[in-house]
């Protein structure tokens, strides 16, 4: 029998503000949604991989809400790749033969956290003296690096935001569901040029969860009709680059993860019908087109300008609204990306459905640095 691993239940909460509930409650609701869709109970779960960047022991605290069954729980923190790492670890656990049914949950509350990215501590504050460690600056500088290489303009960066904000108007679970024309994006408050406020992902609260099963279990329970096959899963850390650790490189690590996932899946870039990639700040979407092999090296700007990455284009990117507009509850993002792909692969994405989608790719980058890539297919 094949050793494929499947998603049989997956859920994400609408990203937004949940001031009256804590991370365990949010994670619990997403977990219950995933269990319900798979038609199983918490007692059927044999292991749990739970992720949160700002919470400790989140897995146990979720089980305290939905059923403490004594199973193995592993809590994972891997920056913005936390949720994706949970799925990857769950996949490994099933492939090892140890388990048939695993629960993965990612949850975060980031409302009100403001600028993320820490200035290093020392005898005196170092912010400014060491340049800026804020995320908008770090990714603004990555965008400028890309622009110097390719001729991308600030208008191109803004157009990414226009596209993803437009997509979110069709996603009822997105935080922002608002059109942002080009001039509005360009004239928004500058946070760190070239990045304006509407080119930054939004700090929100959110949770997402999925149930993974072995092929044996999927067949036993008769769930193949709703199952999503994990064709490729890869997690990479950043190989040495000449500007480490001064300037994080999110490109090489993404290429490494993408190439591993492609090799595992046997899928070619041309087979990908839609992609949810890590648009934490608008400029970085463009190099990721190239890093994920959605176009030739150097052709990212052209791909955007051609309209290929809009809904209806050759390879729609971030039809959920992306991190820019759907929101970015850090540890939930990786699983929320898989939720989006699953909707499309099952033909249930509503107004934003990518017609005939059969294979989807999901990508995240956690600064520090790591990247995860998953390739999913309807079983």
């Amino acid at each position, binding site marked *: 029998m094949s050793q494929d691993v499947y998603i049989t239940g997956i859920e994400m909460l609408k990203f937004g503000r949940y001031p009256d509930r804590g991370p365990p409650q949010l994670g619990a609701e997403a977990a219950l949604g995933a269990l319900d869709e798979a038609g199983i109970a918490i007692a059927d779960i044999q292991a749990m991989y739970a992720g949160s960047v700002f919470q400790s022991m989140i897995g146990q605290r979720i089980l305290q809400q939905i059923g403490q069954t004594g199973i193995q729980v592993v809590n994972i923190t891997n920056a913005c790749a936390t949720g994706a790492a949970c799925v990857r670890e769950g996949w490994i656990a099933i492939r090892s033969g140890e388990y048939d049914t695993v629960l993965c949950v990612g949850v975060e509350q980031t409302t009100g956290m403001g*600028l993320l990215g820490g*200035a290093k501590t*020392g*005898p*005196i*504050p*170092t*912010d*400014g*003296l*060491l*340049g*800026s*460690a*804020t995320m*908008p*600056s770090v990714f*603004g*500088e*990555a965008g*400028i*690096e890309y*622009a*110097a290489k390719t001729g991308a303009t*600030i208008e191109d960066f803004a157009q990414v935001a226009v596209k993803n904000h437009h997509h979110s108007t069709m996603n009822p679970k997105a935080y922002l569901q608002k059109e942002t024309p080009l001039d509005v994006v360009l004239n928004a*408050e*500058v*946070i*760190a*040029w*070239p*990045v304006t406020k509407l080119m930054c992902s939004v700090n929100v609260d959110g949770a997402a969860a999925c149930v993974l099963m072995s092929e044996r279990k999927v067949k036993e329970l008769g769930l193949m009709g709703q199952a999503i096959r994990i064709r490729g899963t890869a997690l990479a850390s950043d190989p*040495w680059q*000449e*500007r*480490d650790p*001064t*300037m994080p490189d999110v490109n090489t690590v993404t290429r490494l993860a993408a190439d591993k996932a492609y090799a595992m899946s046997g899928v070619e870039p041309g087979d990908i019908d839609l992609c949810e990639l890590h648009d934490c700040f608008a400029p970085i979407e463009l190099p990721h087109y190239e890093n994920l092999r959605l176009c030739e090296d150097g052709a990212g700007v052209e791909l955007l300008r051609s309209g290929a990455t809009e809904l209806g284009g050759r390879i729609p990117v971030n039809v959920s609204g992306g991190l820019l507009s759907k929101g970015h509850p850090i540890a939930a993002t990786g699983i929320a990306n898989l939720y989006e792909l699953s909707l499309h692969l099952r033909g249930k994405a509503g107004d934003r459905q990518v017609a005939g989608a059969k294979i989807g790719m999901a990508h995240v980058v956690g600064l520090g640095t790591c990247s995860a890539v998953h390739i999913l297919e309807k079983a």
Partner: protein
Amino acid sequence: MSDTANPPKAAFPFIKIDAGGRASLTAVRCKACGSWYAETHRLACARCGKREFETAEPTLTGKLHAASIVERGFPGTPTPFISAVVDLDDGPVLKGMLRGVACKPGEIPHGRRVKVVFDDALGRKDAEGNSYVSHFFEPA
């Protein structure tokens, strides 16, 4: 009353201040592959894994690799300022504040020649009242 006017300290390990108060850069370089690190001690090389290093003095010239104009920073840091990543001609990559140019996109083209200068660390003092010397970039 004791005299609290201690000589300023180096804000970062890659800055060295001699007995005469003159500041310079210091860094370590992997003897095997030549990779630079803006540090004083290292166990092994992140690029090649070898464990032998030599201390060397980087050049004070380089070129701008990438920059952003920070309008909103962490509390306590005056804005706007230019955050700059600089490839030293012979030395590690340093990040810092580029000053002496207007905070305008046209002033920060990729490849612009810059030099490293040393100055008081924006008036910041530690809990004992010591002042610090930091690096800054200026147009060359």
